[in-house]
C-alpha cells in the first residue's frame, strides 16, 4: 500500500478522454516519475491529485484518506505540496516573507486572524525559515523582492517554500524545465538530498530523461491518458513499448 493510491481515474474534457482508467501507486519515501509525450495527460493527472480538477470516476487516496472534492488548501494541509511548471511565488513580497507564509500556514492552519502579533516576534519560525534558505543557498537574498530573482532562484525559492512545510508528498511539475545543464544538475542533487534526508516522497512529472533516470526509483509511462507501463528505470529503458510511444518518437 503506497502513500498515494490512484485507482481507476477517468477524466473527460468534452469529447477528449484526457485520462482513461489511470492506476498509480506511489510508495512511501520513494521518487516516482511520470513521463509521457505531450498531451499524454500528465498535468491533468497532477491537477486531479491537488484538487484543481475533480476526476469523473475513480478514487485518489492519500495516506488512507480520499482527496477528492477537497479544495487545494485542504489537500495541502493534509501534507501534499506542489511545485509548478512556472514558479508560483509571491512576487511582491521578500524572499523571507515567501518562506514565512508557508510556515504560518503549517502552524496556524488555513485561516487565522493574527492581526496583532508582529511577524518579527515569531523567532522560532524565523529561524526555521533562515535554515531552509541556507539549505537552498539563498540566505544572502532574504530581503530581495521575489519578483526580482532569476528564474533558477525562483524555482529554488518555490522548492524551499514547499520544503519548509515538511510535506509528506511533494509533487513536482517539470522542475527543471528551461534550466541550464548546470542548474539542472544542482536541482537533481537538491531533490536527491531532500528525498534522502527529509523522508519526503516525491512524484515528478518530467520531460528531461536525464533528470528522470538520475532520480526516479520507479517510472510510470503515460500515453494518451492511460498508463502504458510502470517499472524500474532500467526496465523502462529497454521496454520496446515505451520506445515506440515515447523515446522512439523523440529520437526522430
Amino acid at each position, binding site marked *: 500500500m503506497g502513500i498515494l493510491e490512484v485507482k481507476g481515474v477517468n477524466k473527460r474534457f468534452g469529447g477528449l478522454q484526457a485520462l482513461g482508467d489511470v492506476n498509480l501507486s506511489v510508495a512511501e519515501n520513494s521518487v516516482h516519475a511520470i513521463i509521457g509525450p505531450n498531451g499524454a495527460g500528465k498535468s491533468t493527472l497532477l491537477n486531479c491529485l*491537488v484538487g484543481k480538477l475533480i476526476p469523473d470516476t475513480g478514487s485518489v487516496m492519500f495516506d488512507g484518506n480520499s482527496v477528492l472534492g477537497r*479544495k*487545494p*488548501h485542504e489537500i*495541502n*494541509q493534509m501534507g501534499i*505540496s*506542489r511545485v*509548478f511548471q512556472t514558479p*508560483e*511565488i*509571491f*512576487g*511582491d*513580497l521578500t524572499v523571507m*516573507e515567501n518562506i*514565512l*507564509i*508557508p510556515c*504560518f*500556514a*503549517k502552524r*496556524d*492552519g*488555513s*485561516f*487565522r*486572524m*493574527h*492581526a*496583532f*502579533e*508582529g*511577524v*518579527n516576534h*515569531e523567532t522560532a519560525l524565523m529561524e526555521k525559515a533562515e535554515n531552509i534558505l541556507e539549505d537552498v543557498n539563498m540566505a544572502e537574498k532574504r530581503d530581495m523582492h521575489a519578483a526580482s530573482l532569476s528564474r533558477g532562484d525562483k524555482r529554488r525559492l518555490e522548492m524551499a*517554500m514547499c520544503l519548509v*512545510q515538511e510535506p509528506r508528498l511533494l509533487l513536482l511539475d517539470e522542475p527543471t524545465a528551461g534550466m541550464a545543464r548546470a542548474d539542472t544538475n544542482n536541482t537533481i542533487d537538491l531533490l536527491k538530498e531532500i528525498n534522502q534526508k527529509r523522508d519526503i516522497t516525491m512524484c515528478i512529472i518530467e520531460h528531461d530523461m536525464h533528470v528522470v533516470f538520475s532520480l526516479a526509483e520507479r517510472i510510470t509511462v503515460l500515453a494518451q491518458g492511460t498508463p502504458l507501463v510502470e517499472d524500474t528505470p532500467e526496465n523502462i529503458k529497454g521496454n520496446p513499448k515505451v520506445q515506440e510511444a515515447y523515446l522512439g518518437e523523440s529520437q526522430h
Partner: protein
Amino acid sequence: MLGLNKKDAGLFTIVIVLTMLAPFILNPFPENSELAQFNAGYPDLMQRFVIFGIFAIGFNILFGLTGYLSFGHAAFLGVGSYAAIWMMKLLTLNVIPAIIMGIIFAGLCGGGVGFVARSRSGIYFSILTLAFAQMSYALAYSVLTPITGGETGLQIKATDSPLMSSVPEGEIGRANLFGLEMGSSYELSVGGWLFTFNAGYYIAAVCMLIAFYLSIRLFRSPFGMMLRAVKSNQQRMNYTGLNSKPYTLAAFVISGMYAGLAGGLMVAMDTQVGPERMFWTASGEVVLMAILGGVGTLIGPVLGAGMIKYMENIISKINDNILHQWFAFMPDGIEDFMVFIIHPFIGKGWHLTLGIVFMLVVIFLPGGLVEGGQRIGRLFGRKKRAEAEAESTAKTPAE
C-alpha cells in the same frame, strides 16, 4: 514603543505630534494677512482631515493590502452615519455609543457585501461593490425614507427625545462627550494669529490616531502579510494551504468598520446625515485619496485625504477678485490675461486642479505622495553622502 519597531514608532510619533499641533501648523498665516485664506486651521476642515483620514486608512487596508478595489466604500460611511444618528435619536447625545453603533453596523454590512462581492475578483468585484453602494444610496434616498429621512436626511429634533439626553424645544440636538460639546472651541490669539482648539477635532484626532496605530499593527502582523499574499498570488496561496477567501472577507469587514467609524464621527461633529454621503462620487473620492497618497503605504492615504480636502476647501474659496489682487503688480493687460488663464482652475473649478494634480502624481509618482517624499529624502541622503565622501577625500591628502 507599543509593540512597534523603531521606524514605525518614529512615524507614529510624528503623526501624533502633527495631529496634536495641527491648529498651529495649519494656521501659519496671520489672521489679517492676504495669505490667511490658505489657513486650514479651522475646526470644520481639521475635523474633515482626520475623519477622511480614517476612511482612507480603512480603504487602504482592503485596496492597498489585498488589491481588491472597492468602488462602493461610501456605502459603509453612510451606514455608519445613519446608525450613529439613530443611536443619538433614541438613546443619548453622547458620541461614544453612536460611534460604536456606527462601527458595528458598517462592519455587519461589510460582512454581507463582502461575502457576495468576494465571489468575483478584479473589475467584477469593483462593479459589484459599486452596485451595492448605489443600491444603498437608492434605499436611503427613497425606499427607506421612514428610517433614513429620504432626500432631506436626518437631524436630531426635540421631538426625538433621546432616553438619556434632552433636546431643547426648537433646537437641533448637538452631540457631546460626557457634557463636552463637539462644537465648543478654545480660541488662542497670539499677535496676529488666531488658533482654534476644537473639542470635536481632538476627539476625532484621537480616534484617527488609534485607527492609525491599529493599521500599523495590522500591516506588520502575519495577517497583514497574508493579505499582501492575496494581492500577490492567490494560486500559490491556495496551494500553500491557505484559504484566501476568509482573509479577503476579514479585510473587507475591517475596512468597512473603519468607514463606519468615520461615518459615526461625521455625525458626531455635525449631527445630520443625508443620502448624498453614499453617492458613488464619495466612493470614488476615497479611491483618489489612497492613490494620491500612496496605495499600500501606511501614511499615504492620510496624506491623500488631507490633500484632497485641503484643495476642496481652500482652492474653491479663491475667486477672481483675489486673483486680481495677486496679479495687481502686473500691467493691466497681462493681469487680466493671467486671471483669465487661472480662472478655470479655482472656485468651482477646483476639480480641474485636482484632476491635473492626480494625473501628474499617477504618471510621475506611481507610488503617490509617499514616493515623492521618499525621492526627496533619497536626494538629500545622496547629497549628504556625497558631501561626506567629498570631505573624506579632502581630508586624506592632508594626512
